[in-house]
Every structure is written in structure tokens, then in C-alpha cells.
């Protein structure tokens, strides 16, 4: 399938480098990364509000921007790109009513009323048409901003931190609105967020941004399981990032030494003798039940130790686990996530001695 959007560009802003390289179809791509990592600048380059130093942007077969770094060959002006852009602070026109805001970008004057009706319905704004932005709540403002961007029938929709200013229930509702909307539209949507939960709820595809660069693009499960860089592992919540030496390998897997202990990991091309970085997600650390025999699959990579601290996170517990047999000099060696019911059933708590298993299949060696 031919991609709808192809973006390959770089731009220097001050002494900060923005670099993007990705393609996408009619799907939702989430640009995910910490604040200040350059996500908004990437959106601005796509929309034409910022001009990249060099690169190439193509949308639906039309070249929007092309430059070899010396000469700009193509640079379609912002107003001719038909790219909807919903700003983080909504940027509603304060001197216009909801209806006037929504219809600002409407192309077909004859269809105005019809279009307004359908958007007002879709975005749950009925009865608010004659209100001014200052009379609206945060969630309503956001829905007007989205309706306004849709009214011009964009070829691409960009959403900059659409949920950051909304509280949880409003956020959930808006997320489901957007997902519903996306199903009815045949356009790519790029959404920027620094919140992992938002990123996973909204995106089919994830692009992890770090220090101006898109470090990894892929399906969300793939990024969770196989982060390509340390930063990606860190941002996506692979809390346990460790370094080990490759002892050897066979057809079943690879053997890593960590502080004198040997872990078995899935097959990997790493060279024996080299040092690698590997990670395991906190929810993939299994706590063994002392009253049950070891099943196949969880008897790998066993570690005994003590829970040094625990934090109740509302719907789950975070445990900080220290391995007894080796001294690493750290306060804790592993972070473990465990559902509330399991925590209760196992009678866990700070100070309790437990045995955990690092599931072999969950150990991932970070390539970079």
C-alpha cells in the first residue's frame, strides 16, 4: 500500500535539531515523548508554519515541501496545504461565536448550514452555536477546535496535546469521540502527547520522540516489547534497564551475566564477550507463589530477595525489589507492577521475602 504521508526532514532551531523520518497511511500516529522533545515543532514543519532546512514532505501524492538544503524547490504555503491543526491551547477566535469559529475554514459556502449541523452533532455542541469561546468549558473549547479543523475537510489532521488540559472523565469522553470520528474519516491523524496512557489509547502506531529526533516508529505492542534505544525503553515504562555481559549462546537463547548471576534471554545476534543493555517491563516480572510447584516458563531466571518499598498506585501496586544474593550498591534492583488482587492474595508488603522470575521471553536486548 502506498503511504498517504511521507515525511523526511530536518530543521535546526537554535542549537536544537529536529529530525523526522516516517511514513503513514490513513491511521492514527501518536508522537510520543517528554515535554520539550520537539514534538510540536515536527507538527509545525508538517503544516508549513515552520520551514524545514532540508527534506521532503508528500501528502496524497502531492509534494508539499522539497529542499536539498541549499535551494527550496517546493514549499506550498500554509493556507494551501489543507492540513488541520488543533493547537494545544485551542486558539479559538475570541471575537467569533462557536458557529463562526467552526465555519471559518469552510470552503463550500452553499453547504455551510448543512456542514455546521453535522459537525455540531458529531462533536456534541448542539445549542452552543451562538456562544463565545470565553463562555465554554475546556472540553467544549477543544471540541470546537476539532470541529473547526474538520470543517475545511483536511487531508491530514494534527492534534497538539489535545488532552493535556482536560480532567480524566472529559479526557476519556473526548478520546472515544476522536476514535469514533477517525473510523468515519479516511485521513491520517497525527496526535502529540507526553502521556503514555493517552498514547496507547489513541494510537495504532507510535513514534517515540527524544531530543528532537524520532527514535522509533512502529506498532505500539512492538515498541513496548522491543524498544530500540534506551530513551524509548525509558519513556515507554520499561522501568528495569540493566547492563550485562554476553556469556554465550545456543539455539535456545543467549546467556547474560548480571552481577554474577546468569539470565537466559531469547536468541539474539549479540557477540559473546560484549556488553549489552537489556530491559524488562515491571509487569513482566513474575512473583512466584511459594505454595505452588514451578510451572514451565516461569522457572527461568529466578531471583530471591526482599521488597524494600511499595507504592499503591490506585489500580495496581509498584514494588521495589532488592536481590539478596548480590550487592549492587543500589537501593533496589527491580521495579515490579502487580495488580491489586494478586498483591492481596500473595500477602505482599514491604520487608517480605519473595522469589521472582524474569520471564525469558520478556527480556529484551536494546540494540542501540
Amino acid at each position: 500500500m502506498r503511504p498517504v504521508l511521507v515525511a523526511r526532514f530536518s530543521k535546526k532551531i537554535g542549537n536544537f535539531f529536529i529530525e523526522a523520518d516516517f511514513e503513514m497511511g490513513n491511521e492514527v500516529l501518536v508522537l510520543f515523548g517528554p515535554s520539550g522533545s520537539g514534538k510540536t515543532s515536527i507538527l509545525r514543519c508538517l503544516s508549513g508554519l515552520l520551514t524545514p532546512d532540508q527534506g521532503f514532505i508528500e501528502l496524497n501524492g502531492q509534494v508539499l515541501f522539497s529542499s536539498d538544503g541549499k535551494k527550496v524547490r517546493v514549499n506550498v504555503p500554509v493556507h494551501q496545504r489543507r492540513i488541520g491543526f488543533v493547537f494545544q491551547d485551542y486558539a479559538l477566535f475570541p471575537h467569533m461565536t462557536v458557529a463562526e469559529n467552526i465555519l471559518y475554514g469552510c470552503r463550500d459556502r452553499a453547504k455551510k448550514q448543512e456542514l455546521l449541523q453535522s459537525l455540531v452533532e458529531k462533536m456534541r455542541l448542539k445549542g452552543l452555536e451562538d456562544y463565545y469561546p470565553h463562555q465554554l468549558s475546556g472540553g467544549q473549547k477543544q471540541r470546537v477546535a476539532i470541529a473547526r479543523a474538520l470543517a475545511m475537510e483536511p487531508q491530514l489532521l494534527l492534534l497538539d496535546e489535545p488532552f493535556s488540559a482536560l480532567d480524566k472523565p472529559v479526557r476519556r469522553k473526548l478520546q472515544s469521540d476522536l476514535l469514533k470520528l477517525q473510523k468515519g474519516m479516511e485521513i491520517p491523524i497525527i496526535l502529540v502527547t507526553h502521556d503514555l496512557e493517552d498514547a496507547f489509547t489513541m494510537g495504532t502506531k507510535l513514534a517515540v520522540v527524544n531530543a528532537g529526533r524520532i527514535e522509533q516508529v512502529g506498532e505500539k505492542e512492538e515498541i513496548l516489547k522491543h524498544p530500540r534505544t534506551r530513551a524509548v525503553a525509558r519513556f515507554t515504562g520499561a522501568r528495569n534497564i540493566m547492563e550485562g555481559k554476553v556469556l554465550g549462546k545456543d539455539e535456545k537463547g543467549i546467556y547474560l551475566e548480571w552481577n554474577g548471576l546468569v539470565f537466559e534471554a531469547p536468541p539474539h545476534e549479540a557477540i559473546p564477550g560484549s556488553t549489552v543493555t537489556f530491559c524488562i517491563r515491571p509487569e513482566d516480572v513474575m512473583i512466584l507463589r511459594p505454595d505452588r510447584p514451578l510451572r514451565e516458563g516461569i522457572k527461568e531466571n529466578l531471583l530471591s530477595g526482599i521488597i524494600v518499598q511499595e507504592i499503591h498506585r490506585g489500580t495496581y501496586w509498584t514494588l521495589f525489589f532488592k536481590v539478596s544474593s548480590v550487592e549492587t550498591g543500589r537501593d533496589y534492583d527491580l521495579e515490579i507492577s502487580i495488580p491489586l488482587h494478586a498483591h492481596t492474595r500473595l500477602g505482599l508488603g514491604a520487608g517480605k521475602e519473595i522469589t521472582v522470575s524474569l520471564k525469558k521471553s520478556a527480556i529484551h536486548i536494546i540494540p542501540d
Partner: protein
Amino acid sequence: MDLKSRRIERMDLSPLLLSLKVAITATAMVTISGLALAILMVKLRFPGKSLLEVFLTLPLVLPPSVVGYYLLLILGRNGPLGWLNWLFTWKAAVLASWLVALPLMFRSAKAALESVDPSLEMVARTLGAPPWKAFLEVTLPLASRGIMAGIILSFARALGEFGATLMVAGNIPGKTRTIPLAIYTAVQANRMDLATLWVVITVSLAFAFILMVNKLQPR
């Protein structure tokens, strides 16, 4: 009593009409030029920009007589605009009022334009509006209160112009004698009653203008 009413009856109203004519003309000029300069300064980047800004503010700080002195050089027989023959006509008074009011208009308009969130214009452009259209439909209406305040302030300043006007337009009754000059002349001639009358008119006008400006300031 009889004497007083006779005097008022004979009072020459030409300074009021002349003042209004000069101030309205100067304000119209100042509105266009001040707004254009403000837009230029907000939208464009060019070398010497900050220097130009200093020059545009200078008449606000300088004594009006200094402004008058320079205008005299420019409009004088050997000056670059000497061929216009405007010296000691009401047109010279307009020019003097325009120059002293320009900084007020320019600065008010610039502040008003800068106070509008730039992301609004950006959004308008993503919605299909060319830059000039986005400016006219979004930034300009949102800055209109501040611009209006600048116009009123400029009008008030033009109406009160004295020093520079005296130097380039003189004090010719019925031709270039505006209200401030009429007050000065009346006091010189020891006609305090006439001076008081003009003063009352001027103060009322100024009072009304300030009230209008305050109403326009965003709360």
C-alpha cells in the same frame, strides 16, 4: 454684565473650527501612517528596525519647539519641502500635529497588535486564509480597541498642539490661530475671560476623550 455679553457675542469662533479641521486632518493621517508603521514593525524584520523605532518615538520625548525647529528647516524656503509653500498656513499646523501625535498612534497600535496571540493567526492560515486575510480577519479586529484608543489619544494630542504649531504655522487670526494659540494670545492681551472660556472648552473635550479611551481599555 452688559459689557461681558457684548464681548462674548463678538467672540471669534474660528479657533475652534480651525482646531477641529487641523486635528481631524492630522488624526486621519496619523491613523493611516501610524498603523502602517506598527504593522511593518510587528510583521517584518529588517536592518535598522530598532533605530527606526527610536526615531518614531523621539517626537514624544522632545520639546515641541525642537520638533518645530526641524519642521521649520524642512518646510523653509531652502528646505527639501520648501517648494510646497506651506509655512505659516494651516497645512503646516497639520504637519506639526501629525508629527507629535505619530508616536502615540504608532506605540498604541504596535502594543495592540502584539497583544494578540500569534497562534490565532497561525490557525487561521492552516484553515485556508492567506496571511493578509488572516491578519485582517483575526489580528486586526482583536487589536481594534487598542488601535481606537491610539486614535483618540492622537486626536487629543493634535488638538492641544501648541509649540511646534506656533513655530511653523504662526499665530495668524482666522488662518492658523488654533485654540491653544487663542488661549495664549488672550492671556497676553489680558483677556482672562476669553482665555477661561477656551480653557473650559479644551478641558471638557480632553475629559471626554480620556473617558472614551478608558472605556476602550480591555478590562
